[in-house]
């Protein structure tokens, strides 16, 4: 059965293109466009991996990451933080909230795919 990946990003076009690549690569992809929806789907849909944008409406990405990673029920779900900010402090914050990996926009497709495969143990 195909692994399920959740993308949380308020940018429709970014979601669309990432979704396309992941689907072509054989994953099932679900998407949320704000923090609240993202958190709900992370809990209800039980994805195998989450790609999480930082700047999101309603609840920001770091908060969602922390809520998932500090919840024993969901903490095993790997999370890749996805941000347009390229400051050192962002990378540091991602680690602090328990994210498994970190990727800046614009990203290299090869690197994204590599990280997903690694985190899913493929």
């Amino acid at each position, binding site marked *: 059965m195909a692994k399920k990946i959740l993308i949380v990003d308020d*940018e429709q*076009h*970014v979601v*669309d*293109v*990432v979704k*396309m*690549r992941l689907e*072509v690569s054989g994953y099932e992809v679900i998407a949320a466009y704000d923090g609240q929806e993202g958190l709900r789907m992370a809990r209800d849909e039980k994805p195998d991996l989450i790609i999480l944008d930082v700047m999101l409406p309603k609840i920001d990405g770091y908060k969602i990451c922390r809520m998932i990673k500090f919840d024993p029920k969901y903490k095993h779900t790997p999370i890749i933080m996805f941000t*347009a*900010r*390229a*400051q*050192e402090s962002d990378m540091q914050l991602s680690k602090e909230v328990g994210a498994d990996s970190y990727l*800046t*926009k*614009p*990203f290299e*497709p090869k690197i994204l795919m590599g990280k997903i495969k690694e985190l899913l143990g493929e």
Partner: protein
Amino acid sequence: MKSENILNDIINEMNRMTVALDDTEPFIKWAVENALTVTCCDMCAIVLINLNNAAISYGFRKSCGNELKASFKNTVKTKLQDLSFFDSLNVYDLASYVSSDDPDERQMKDSAEMGQFVVKTLKHKETLIGYCIFAWTNGWEIASNKADLLSGYCDQLSPALNTIMGKAIIHNQSYLLEERKKSAEDERKKLSVIIDGMKEGLIIVDENNHIMTMNKSACEMLEFHNYTDARYAKEILADVLKYEQCADGHGEEDILITVPVVKTIHKSVSPIYDASKRMLGRALLLTDVTKEREFEQMKVDFVSIASHEFRTPITAIKEAISLVNEEMMGPLNDKQKKCLDIAMKDTERLADLVKDLFKISQIESGKIELKRSAIALAFVIREVVEKLRPKAEKKNIEIVHKIPQDIPGVFADPHQISSVLRNIMDNAIKFTPEGGRVTLDVGSRTLDVTPATSHVPRPTSHVVVSVTDTGPGITAEDQEKLFHKFSQLDSSIRRESTGAGLGLAIAKGIVEMHGGEIWIESEKGKGAAFKFTLPVYNSIEPR
């Protein structure tokens, strides 16, 4: 009238005059005219001697002819040269007076010639003051009853002249002093008008940091004029007057004032020295830079926000192109692929530009934090060289690197230094023609550096990294421009290069943040060497 009485009258008059006058001229005029009256001589002269100068004032009877006057003057001068102690006396005529009438109604004939000649020395306490010279025309001579009068007159003249001359000197000097004081006062007033009219604030402190002068603008800038709380003034002044001295005593700093309004004052400190190079104090020039700093912040914020906003659409464009170009959406023909290659390349270029813009704004606003540690430069260099080797090989360029075994570790952020080196190497490869060579050298040198926290320079070792290419070289004029933002040289180079001209500005920013320097050594047509220094680990550690 008896001669004693005449003399007494004259002495009284002389005393009155010495009290009343403080100038020699009216006194001498009086003395000359009286000499004629008292002695009934035809011509007389009073000579004042000062070193080898002799100033002569003449007196003549009203009926004295010009020929006779000239003859007397010559005789006086010849006589003076005979009397002088000096090889040559510097003689000059001070004045010539003619009595208002002939004292004894005796009219002189035109044919009159010089006759008797009497010279009396004027002395005051053994000091020669001058001479009094009396002359009669031929056929006349001093009357026997007038000889004593003449001597008595001269005896009285000496102390009176001495007093008057002394007074004149004092008067002259006090006049000069007054003049000098007045001109100093004028100068001071002029300076104070200039200082108070200055737009910039000026504070002058002495060597103990005590305020000597503070102009109007400084008071206004520091809000002293409408905020008179002493504690406030003390706090602000402490902030303004404190300074971290550099080696040459100069310093610059921004001061933030928050009450009653928020503003930024830029302070520039210059030492003041006297002629013997002793420091007298310092001049603090204050400029209100609130608007400038706000504008700079706005610029940084704008670049930061803009570069962030650009990233998201670039991400989507790049990924969309990749998906199609990788034929994930179906096979492509050659022309379609070529189009997408171009789109991809320029999207990447756009992404790099946004990244560079963001980085330069971070450097300029001091927001980049260096993660410094002792790093082995050889490792960083090898990594960069390996990364760039494929690019060099495409142009058949040989990369030569000579890294000595014993180069010391440097105190640096490996990630940032790697990006500096990559940028320089990348440029070198870009501008070197096919078949050329790029050489990487590492050396070291010792510098005298004055740390900000100390007044004493101490030697700091630096490692020098140089990248030499066999490219077209850079003129001295262009070398200056190269490290500025958005600087690219002539259009022939532009065609080949695709950078935005930010790379070297970023490299300069990073190297300088490390306490190093970056520069170019090049001549047009002879290749270029880009060099930068980094402080050696040991020299940074406290001893």
